């Protein structure tokens, strides 16, 4: 009798299978990629002209503000991807496919973690294409000597962001809603994360709040590496901060997610939607 196994290689293939599934579903909607690239073009166009229209204090030239905001726009996409997990989970619940994940030896927690792979990879590609479009269409000047370093920095940033998606997924498992909250959180983080304007413009207490989450540090590091913006806390300090966020929050959020699933199984509401 053939017997399934649970070794690391098989689990690794299961992780990739989830990503491949999400890619297949994504590619089955042929206009989605084009639509999102067009959205980036519109955002870039808007901020390109805004940067030329107004004088922004703290920036040497309109181009330096444009470079600043293009990285911010790229990070918004990354943020949306991180917070898309609860909505993806809700879709699985409604379609009844979450039952399958729960009933599989691979399990619901690992499946949900694997479900983050494609959105994060996709956001990475989308961020790169936004920067590319900024260069091609609007003459964005990238700091090519440090651009390669932005790849591992982005990977670390994604690890630091991932727990937020997992925590909202846990919330969705328990209360069956999560996407409403994520919209608020993204809007809030866009402000305190300094995606569209420098955090230094904000009231002092908000600046303090900006230091308590990883999005501000990640955006600052990536700006530094991609467009040569100065970074207050130093690139090393910001990277250490991201690493600490990832090291603490990834296991903590995984534990919370596992507990939320167990809670749903005890109450019998795990597959309700």
């Amino acid at each position, binding site marked *: *009798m*053939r*017997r*399934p*196994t*649970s070794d690391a*290689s*098989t*689990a690794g*293939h*299961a992780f*990739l*299978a*989830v990503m*491949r*599934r999400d890619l*297949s*579903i994504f590619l*089955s*909607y042929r206009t989605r990629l084009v639509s999102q690239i067009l959205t980036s073009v519109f955002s870039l166009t808007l901020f390109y002209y805004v940067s030329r229209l107004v004088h922004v204090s703290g920036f040497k030239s309109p181009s330096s503000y444009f470079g600043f905001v293009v990285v911010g726009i790229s990070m918004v996409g990354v943020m949306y991807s991180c917070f898309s997990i609860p909505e993806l989970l809700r879709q699985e619940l409604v*379609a*009844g*496919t979450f*039952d*399958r*994940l*729960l*009933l*599989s*030896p*691979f*399990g619901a927690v690992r*499946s949900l973690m694997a479900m983050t792979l494609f959105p994060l990879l996709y956001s990475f590609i989308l961020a790169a294409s936004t920067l590319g479009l900024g260069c091609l269409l609007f003459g964005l000047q990238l700091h090519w000597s440090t651009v390669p370093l932005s790849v591992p920095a982005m990977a670390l940033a994604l690890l630091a962001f991932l727990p937020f998606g997992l925590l909202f997924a846990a919330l969705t498992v328990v209360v069956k809603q999560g996407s409403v909250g994520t919209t608020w959180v993204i809007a809030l983080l866009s402000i305190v994360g300094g995606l569209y304007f420098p955090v230094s413009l904000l009231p002092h207490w908000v600046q303090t709040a900006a230091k308590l989450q990883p999005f501000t540090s990640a955006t600052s590091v990536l700006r530094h590496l991609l467009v040569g913006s100065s970074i207050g806390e130093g690139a090393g300090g910001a990277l250490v901060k991201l690493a600490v966020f990832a090291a603490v929050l990834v296991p903590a959020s995984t534990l919370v997610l596992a507990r939320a699933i167990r809670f749903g*199984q*005890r109450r*019998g509401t*795990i*597959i309700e939607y």
Partner: protein
Amino acid sequence: MSSRSLPAPMPVAAAGEDLGASLPAKVRPRAVDAFPLALRNVTKRWRKNQSPVLQELDLALEPGSFTWVGGRNGAGKTTMLRIAAGLIEPEQGRAEVWGVGAQENRVRYQTLVSFLPAGDRGLYARLTVRRQLEFWARISMTRPGQVRRVVEETIDAFDLRELADRRVDRMSMGQRQRLRIAMTFLPRPETVLLDEPLTSLDTEGAALLLRAVRQVLDRDGVVLWCSPSGEHLDMTFDARWVLDRGRLVPG
């Protein structure tokens, strides 16, 4: 119903010894009264002040047995199957596969048990039949080198060859049900739980299902079949029960 009133239970020591010898070490029964599936003293209520949907329910399935559980709508058949599948937990009691509960070793539990929920849900509408089966094979932890063969064998076993590259949202209800059944049997489970499996199936689909059931029974697995009324099949059930007021009574 208590375990004492189970009809002609298999001599428990023999169950452990015989099956233990035929199974790989990692799935050998731990206890002499271990069964391919056992529900022990299971009680489940949805709200504290409501009467339980399942009440101190005991059920032990002997190796190679084909069992039917019926009951009116809302009697608790699906709840019982969900508990048996490890999907939800009972308020009291436990479900076991070879003496192991889902919470003790979930990977092993889900490796041995396969559950076909009622209805037509649980499929990715935008994936083809082959992609769906591949995905399921991989999260069922099938060895990577065996996935392709297992998928192709399943496609043939459930006569899905013509549909293999068709997307699920372009298939009929009966075709989808055949795919759901194929997914249920793909990992070669020992304990199969079927909730109204004949839904939307044509004669040919029902015959394929029964063939798969026979194969499970032939390798000493068990099949628990739930439906509101008794099915007229080309197979006889070894035991028939009706779920009534949270308890099993002979059907």
